[in-house]
């Protein structure tokens, strides 16, 4: 019967959230905003491409003087340029519109500026003068070097592969750090998106005076567990809704949106780090869920619940204030404190796990701590709901509730 009721609670709690218009309004607001941004980027990039092509193809007349000796007549001619005998006359020709531009190359372009004079064609189109003046100089310099390979190296166009070792084995570097840190990302998204709902999950029963009906109809543990499961399902729907436009945008419009080409095949999934990361995520989620539901069972209104929500949220962001210490000196006292203090432990341990500075023993201690305290918090939440939520209009005195002998 309990199993049947758990399914009933999960179904009821899940459906009554996802069938509400306001849920979809909130859930779709971010994807719609993202889609709008993508669309603007897409349109903008298309426009920029067209403009660039148009500029590339657009010929303009210009003259130049060269004191450096780097500019060759042939290169300048391909851009439509001719040599000018007198700089002042060339500037005058630009001013009266006889030619579109005049470039004055100094004796030492490395230290002296190339002066560009041009007929104003608008802010965006004026850029072509700089571009052509620069390209003519680069082409001239490359011809002077005389080797395309040397030219590429001179521009820093060099490919490097690196290999590092840990305990005699090749370590994956950044590619091993990213996968376990994804658990941290999931943890943040879950808590930030669902935290408020967790806090308010049992408040509804109090505010609507449903508690007595519930307590005489079903086991409160079933209700709380059912609510947590349904919250997780709601969160999954929200995450999918958020992620879908990004995935679609990446798969189908990556080049149009100028998104980087991420090669996921390079990522290295280290079994230990992944298992530890997953367990830290579950333990942290359990602890925060239990704590937030317990707070919800204690206070009479949403407004009052909010005062307890902020400190908990701060706890999960505090470790980032010492992230440089976590990276450089994981044995520092502050890092150790954050690693074992329950409400900072999950984030700190997940960071250290990703960075490879969390030992197996430390992982074990933190995981046991998170799961242990998480179950205690959930048990407390059930107890408070069981014996405290009947106090409809006042905040529960935790001490007086705990003093009562449990029969649950």
């Amino acid at each position: 019967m309990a199993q049947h009721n758990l399914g009933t609670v999960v179904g009821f709690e899940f459906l009554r959230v996802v069938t509400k218009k306001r849920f979809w309004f909130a859930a779709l607001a971010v994807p719609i905003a993202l889609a709008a941004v993508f669309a603007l980027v897409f349109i903008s990039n298309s426009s920029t491409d067209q403009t660039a092509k148009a500029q590339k193809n657009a010929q303009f007349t210009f003259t130049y003087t060269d004191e450096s000796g780097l500019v060759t007549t042939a290169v300048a001619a391909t851009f439509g340029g001719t040599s000018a005998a007198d700089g002042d006359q060339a500037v005058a020709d630009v001013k009266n519109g006889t030619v579109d531009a005049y470039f004055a190359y100094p004796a030492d372009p490395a230290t002296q500026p190339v002066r560009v004079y041009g007929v104003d064609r608008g802010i965006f189109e004026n850029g072509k003068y700089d571009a052509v003046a620069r390209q003519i100089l680069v082409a001239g310099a490359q011809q002077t070097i005389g080797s395309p390979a040397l030219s590429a190296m001179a521009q820093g166009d060099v490919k490097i592969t690196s290999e590092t070792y840990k305990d005699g084995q090749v370590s994956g570097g950044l590619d091993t750090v990213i996968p376990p840190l994804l658990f941290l990302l999931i943890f943040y998204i879950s808590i930030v998106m669902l935290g408020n709902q967790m806090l308010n999950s049992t408040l509804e029963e109090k505010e609507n005076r449903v508690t007595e009906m519930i307590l005489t109809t079903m086991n409160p543990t079933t209700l709380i567990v059912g609510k947590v499961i349904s919250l997780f399902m709601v969160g999954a729907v929200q995450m999918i809704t958020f992620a879908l436009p990004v995935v679609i945008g990446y798969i189908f419009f990556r080049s149009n949106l100028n998104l980087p080409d991420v090669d996921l095949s390079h990522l290295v999934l280290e079994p230990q780090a992944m298992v530890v990361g997953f367990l830290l995520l579950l333990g942290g989620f359990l602890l925060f869920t239990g704590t937030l539901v317990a707070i919800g069972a204690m206070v009479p209104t949403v407004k009052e619940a909010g005062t307890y929500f902020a400190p908990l949220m701060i706890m999960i962001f505090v470790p980032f204030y010492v992230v440089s210490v976590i990276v450089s000196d994981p044995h520092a006292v502050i890092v150790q404190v954050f690693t074992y203090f329950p409400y900072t432990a999950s984030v700190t341990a997940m960071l250290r796990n990703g960075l490879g500075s969390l030992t197996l023993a430390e992982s074990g201690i933190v995981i046991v701590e998170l799961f242990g305290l998480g179950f205690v918090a959930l048990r407390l939440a059930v107890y408070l709901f069981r014996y405290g939520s009947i106090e409809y209009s006042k905040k529960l005195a935790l001490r007086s509730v705990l003093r009562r002998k449990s029969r649950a």
Partner: protein
Amino acid sequence: MDFGSQTVIRDLSFDVHAGETFGFLGSNGSGKTTTLRALLGIYQPTAGVLHIGGKVFEPRDGARLGYLPEERGLYKKEPVLDVMVYFGRLKGLSRDAAAAWSRTYLERVSLADKATTRLDKLSGGQQQKIQLGVTIMNDPELLILDEPTQGFDPVNRRLLMDIIDEQKRAGATVIMVTHQMDEVERLCDRVVLLKDGTAEAYGTVEDVQDKYGGTVVRLLYAGPLPTSDLFDVISADGSSAELAPRAGTDETEILRELLGHGVAVRSFTPARTSLEEIFLRVYGIQNELVGV
């Protein structure tokens, strides 16, 4: 049952027989709701248990218990039918059975057209009907109603009483907290009167009437009402009065005494003291009213 250092219920024990309707009476703050909550495990009692059919009651999934609390409420932002089906399923009905039962009930209480309406869009009385429906789903064996008529107009109060009566006829045991003494007299087999957390009176309605009120004489008259050693005047307004015979006094002697003093008696009706009268006496309000 203690709250901090204050004892709210003490040494209270009573039996409710299977199939009977039991009245739980008392003034505001006398401990009725607290007792019910303690019995149902909503409050943690300092001591004591509720036995149902000889077994200690533990709130558990699927118990055939219908409880209408004093503090009413359901999921206000959900449609009526969804909430009813949800509670029906929690009480062990299938989805289809719960939906069918709910529709029949809504038809019965003239709310069939509100099945898809959100609860908070209904009037207070309509919400009360839904709450009662949720309470009696799945034919409870034990029905506990804390002030069931609260918030009902006379027409709907009668409808509600009929529904409770049907449940009783179907075999349910009913425990009812109410301040409507006429309903207690009409529906209840036995009662307990709670005062300051203890049972002031306990037994059948007739037992309590005999013990606390006995017989009264309802009198319609003209002329001055004499003082007498044979009776006490409970109330008198110059044309009607209620007299309480003193111990060992026969009603005939009272009639003779009145006639002997020249009282023009138009009607002389011996009757049992009403529960309302007893209620007023037990809680001391009677004396204050007579004093006024």
